[in-house]
């Protein structure tokens, strides 16, 4: 029997997911022995035309990381969907939008203005902005178009599995590889992580959830044994799926929510606001104002990884178009 074919791709991501795959260390050799890696931009020199030349459904497993925010991402996602039997949203960005989706709190016009005109390191007196097509003497040059919204992979093409995390932890990657190798993948649509919240899995001492003020992580040295939320540090554990191995918590840092919402929760940020509201014990207008001031960027804190997948998805703009 021919070896199964695996492909890996990155769209709007940082490369951390690809590094996480490499973090399985010598097990990568097992993967290589088990399957043919037919596409992996970070490690192997394949081109898009190689991908386009493959037969439909000829890739057995595609691990797709990164969010979708340009015409190139969308095009490649659609090609991978056609070529792959099993499509996996790999990592927080592909699953929920991730950090790139925080761009949904602004607009493409504002991003271009900031990046190509306002940024102090720019000298762009001519107001040159990227164009999808530029005519030069040698012919036409093309650039992908940046969308006015950052999307998840599943908002772009159908997806079989979701592996959350920023990046996904090694044990989950190995679990998926083993399940794939032995034909024991869970039912389609599964999120491959825990079905509990991070709080359920956290071993810190939880006494009474009552807080009177919010501390940002740099303002306080947290007690390493006690619940971080009870210490007034915003920890997204109540609104986040577990299964991550408590990597941040064990480093005495609060959960930032990269595993997305737990089962049954459709909006991670709203759930987190409600969790904070239910433990906040301050009274009087002045105290409440102080607490709210302590949450400097609520949308960015509660939807740090989940904005594209949230109910609102993005900031409302007065007039906008996804494609120019």
């Amino acid at each position, binding site marked *: 029997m021919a070896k199964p074919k695996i492909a890996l791709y990155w769209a709007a991501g940082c490369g951390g997911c690809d590094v996480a795959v490499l973090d399985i260390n010598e097990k990568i050799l097992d993967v290589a022995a088990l399957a043919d890696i037919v596409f992996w931009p970070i490690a192997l020199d394949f081109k898009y035309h190689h991908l386009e030349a493959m037969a439909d459904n000829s890739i057995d497993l595609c691990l797709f990381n990164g969010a979708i925010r340009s015409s190139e991402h969308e095009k490649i996602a659609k090609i991978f969907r056609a070529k792959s039997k099993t499509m996996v949203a790999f990592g927080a960005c592909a699953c929920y939008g991730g950090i790139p989706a925080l761009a949904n709190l602004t607009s493409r016009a504002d991003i271009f203005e900031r990046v190509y005109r306002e940024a102090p390191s720019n000298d762009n007196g001519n107001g040159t902005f990227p164009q999808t097509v530029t005519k030069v003497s040698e012919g036409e040059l093309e650039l992908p178009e940046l969308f006015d919204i950052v999307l998840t992979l599943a908002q772009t093409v159908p997806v079989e599995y979701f592996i959350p995390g920023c990046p996904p932890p090694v044990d989950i990657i190995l679990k998926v590889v083993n399940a794939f190798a032995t034909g024991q993948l869970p039912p389609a649509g599964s999120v491959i992580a825990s079905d509990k919240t991070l709080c359920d899995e956290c071993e810190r001492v939880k006494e009474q959830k009552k807080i009177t003020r919010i501390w940002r992580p740099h303002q306080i040295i947290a007690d390493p044994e006690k619940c971080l939320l009870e210490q007034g540090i915003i920890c997204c554990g109540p609104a986040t799926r577990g299964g991550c191995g408590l990597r941040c918590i064990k480093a005495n840092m609060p959960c930032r929510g990269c595993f997305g919402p737990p089962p049954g929760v459709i909006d991670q940020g709203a759930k987190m*606001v409600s969790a904070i509201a239910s433990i906040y014990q301050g009274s009087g207008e002045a105290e409440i104002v102080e*607490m709210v001031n302590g949450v400097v960027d609520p949308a960015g804190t509660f939807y740090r990884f989940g904005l594209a997948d949230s109910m609102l998805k993005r900031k409302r*703009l007065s007039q*906008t*178009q996804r494609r120019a």
Partner: protein
Amino acid sequence: MALLKKMLAQFGIESERVRLDWVSASEGDHFAAIVNEMTEQVKKLGPFSRNGGGKNG
């Protein structure tokens, strides 16, 4: 509530669209007044559309 309003502002949602109030079961007039006020307020703002009716939805 204050935190929610601050967050909704980041999403471009007017704070007048959200209100939390307490009314006792015996305060029918007060309840009606609040509902009327809220209705008027939201009517003034016009229909809610994500992205001002843009395509992003």
